[in-house]
């Protein structure tokens, strides 16, 4: 399956975080690269959603929808900054 980018999960991330997230800045915990969520590499229906760093390929985030609940693993990110001061 061809990889998409973080734009494709804007709706999912809005559900998870309660706000628009595609412009939020991520810092990769593996290589330190900074990028907006929109520019990350996204694999959908993998069966879950896998978000990877465009620079080093490491997993930034995994989101699985389990019985109506979003299970989110942000372990691959050193930071996720919405720039909204909170």
């Amino acid at each position, binding site marked *: 399956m061809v990889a998409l980018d973080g734009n494709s999960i804007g709706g999912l991330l809005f559900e998870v975080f309660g706000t628009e997230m*595609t412009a939020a800045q991520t810092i990769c915990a593996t290589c330190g690269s900074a990028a907006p969520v929109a520019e990350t590499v996204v694999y959908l229906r993998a069966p879950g959603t896998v978000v990877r760093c465009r620079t080093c390929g490491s997993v930034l985030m995994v989101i699985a929808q389990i019985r109506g609940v979003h299970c989110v693993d942000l372990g691959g990110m050193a930071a996720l900054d919405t720039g909204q001061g909170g």
Partner: protein
Amino acid sequence: MATAAVRGRLTWQTATVTSVTRETDAVRTIELEVPDWPGHQAGQHLDVRLTAEDGYTAERSYSIATADDEPVAITVERLDDGEVSPYLTEELRAGDQLELRGPIGGWFVWDTSDGGPLLLVAGGSGVVPLRAILRHRERVGSDVPARLLYSSRTLAEVIYRGELDQYRDGVEVSYTLTRSRPPGWTGYSGRVDAALLAKIAWPASEHPLTFVCGPTSFVEAVAGSLVALGYPAGRVKTERFGGT
């Protein structure tokens, strides 16, 4: 209105299809009446959800094709092995309901305050959000200069051609056809590559703002070429479309 779009709630709602218009053989524009639409920015998309009688659901995202003060519309390309696009382009008709949520997107968006000059590079149906940007630009009377480079396989597959050919002052539209050209074709041929971009794109010294949209391989090739032309990566915004 833009603030509401970012900070508001994102809930599924039921819209009514008001028209389905043929753009090309495989492409339809679906205009919608959305009861609680908060307005949207050019470049944003909405998510569509289809539900079968047995409860099976399928969701896909489609870029909004129109400017904020127009009825909400999406332009959908039918993919042969698609699950959702054949339904939207061949089955859906005026009067049907369509579940959707939106608008979505905070990065791949443009408003006049973002400035320019604008470079818009479209591959196939990637033209949809870029067309929304141009419509928004026109409707607010912006004088930000814009150039659209639109790559299609054939002339017959160019979406919105009549409209795009009308642009004059401030907007330059160039087409490149990759698979076949009609007799007497005076536009460009072949894939968008560094050489073609060097001809069409603003010089990097003008600090353009760029939006690239289309299939993943197209976007990555174009983005790579732009960076090689000296465009800083932070001023090149990309949106990748996939299949089905």
